[in-house]
């Protein structure tokens, strides 16, 4: 794992957005990227939730790094992460009930999201709190960015909508008079499409990186 020695704390954040993007480079945090990117609104909510959890848990893990015994390091990290995930879950249930119904168990699964643990283990326990916070925030935002792109493509081609608003004009669709007209690409609704898109995105990323 490359150790980033930066003078400016902000570079911790920007590093995570592209160069060290967690999904495309470190291949962490995949599970939820596939399960929740059907609809853009859900994908964005997930991205924001993960950013929140990663940033704050990295901050606290870093804060406690000097007094945490080695044998319970992982349990401590899990506890801190769980606290923040529960905060988000309760908040969603109280004020955004319809979204929490759609996301259901995936909110709880943020706890075991490799991305959050990866940042806590890989970075937060080695650096002071503020850089850890920025690093976590950057990782979360990089993740949210990838989720946004996949979600947008899936919703646009799978439903013809973005955020629930119809983008593909209704009169383009096939009907009794024009049975050969446009139809939604239903494979995009199935999660296997997310796999293809992700593989493609990694391929494109590698290609850009090579140049």
């Amino acid at each position, binding site marked *: 794992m490359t150790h980033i020695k930066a003078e400016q704390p902000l570079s911790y954040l920007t590093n995570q957005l592209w160069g060290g993007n967690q999904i495309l480079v470190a291949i962490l945090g995949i599970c939820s990227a596939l399960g929740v990117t059907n609809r853009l609104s859900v994908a964005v909510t997930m991205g924001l939730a993960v950013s929140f959890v990663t940033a704050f848990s990295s901050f606290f893990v870093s804060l406690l790094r000097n007094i945490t015994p080695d044998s319970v390091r992982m349990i*401590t990290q899990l506890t801190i992460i769980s606290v923040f995930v529960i905060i988000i879950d309760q908040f969603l249930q109280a004020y955004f009930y319809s979204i929490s119904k759609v996301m259901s168990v995936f909110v709880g699964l943020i706890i075991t999201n490799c991305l959050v643990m990866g940042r806590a283990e890989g970075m937060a326990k080695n650096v002071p709190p503020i850089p850890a916070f920025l690093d976590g925030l950057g990782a979360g935002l990089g993740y949210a960015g990838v989720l946004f792109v996949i979600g947008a493509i899936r919703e646009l081609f799978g439903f013809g909508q973005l955020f629930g608003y119809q983008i593909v004009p209704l009169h383009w669709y096939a009907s009794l008079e024009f049975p050969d007209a446009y139809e939604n690409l239903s494979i995009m609704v199935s999660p296997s499409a997310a796999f293809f898109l992700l593989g493609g995105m990694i391929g494109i990323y590698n290609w850009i990186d090579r140049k």
Partner: protein
Amino acid sequence: MPQEYTEKGERSVSEQQLSDKNSNSYTLVFITVLSIIAAIILSLLASVLEAPKVVAKDLDRSRQMMIAANILDREGSFLIDDGKGKPKKARLENGKLVAKSVDNIATQEQLLGIYKDRLQPLLVDSAGKLTTFEAAHINEQEYVSAHRKMGYYKQPLKLIYKILPQEKNNSDKELYANAAGWVIPMNGFGLWDAIYGYLAIASDGITVLGMTWYDHKETPGLGANIADAYWQEFFPGKKIFQQDASGNIDLNTAPLGITVVRGKVSEVYGSSSKANSAIDGMAGATLTGNGVTDAYTDVLKAYRPFLKHVNASYSTNKKEATS
């Protein structure tokens, strides 16, 4: 000399134990303190958010029931019957709903208030007799949460909601009388997991007022369309009892339920009377549609005696009104 050394040695060992963060006692203390702090933070949060959470959940269910019963529209404003059977937008003024043509989004308290006012939970037995929760000595909250998953229709006393009309007269003693309609909680099994909805029936016991499926774990974009307004709006006006070829309904023998067909009803049934008990299917969601059809058949079967009663008293009232 050795004495001093041993004493000093012992003392420094125990000091070292406490400050060494890898020692057992330190670890134990650390974990205990961490757990306590985490528990305190979460308990505080949970107790603060307890009320909004309960409200959100009840609100969601109440809202769905009111949408099915045509008391609320999907954007969030109240509706009242304009006397000709067509719902009009309304606003809450002085405790009564008054027709207003502008959009008035109802607040949470208003929603819950009207819900309590207009929807009365009752129990009906297998012979079709109505009774209240108090008379049956059953705790409503316990009953509602205990049987939600397996279905109220499987119980000997089944849950049903009476839609009370705008203007109530004091004939609350008469459980059958003065109903603007009835709401039956629907249970079924979609593709992945149970589906829950509300079916609102008009006072004749035959025509559908509205339908909402509010809880499901179906595939987004496919089976999940049962929760979409677009699909639910096919339901009002359908008949749960299937008419025979001449348009009559024999309440004792007619098939009871609504069928989700593959494709469009107009293509499958044309203009035959079966079309009045069928709904367009959703492309790619045949299995969810089958689950919905089965839900109707299974649940409504349990309420048939009750629906016959309702229709009988409706026809009697109509005759009395016209004679």
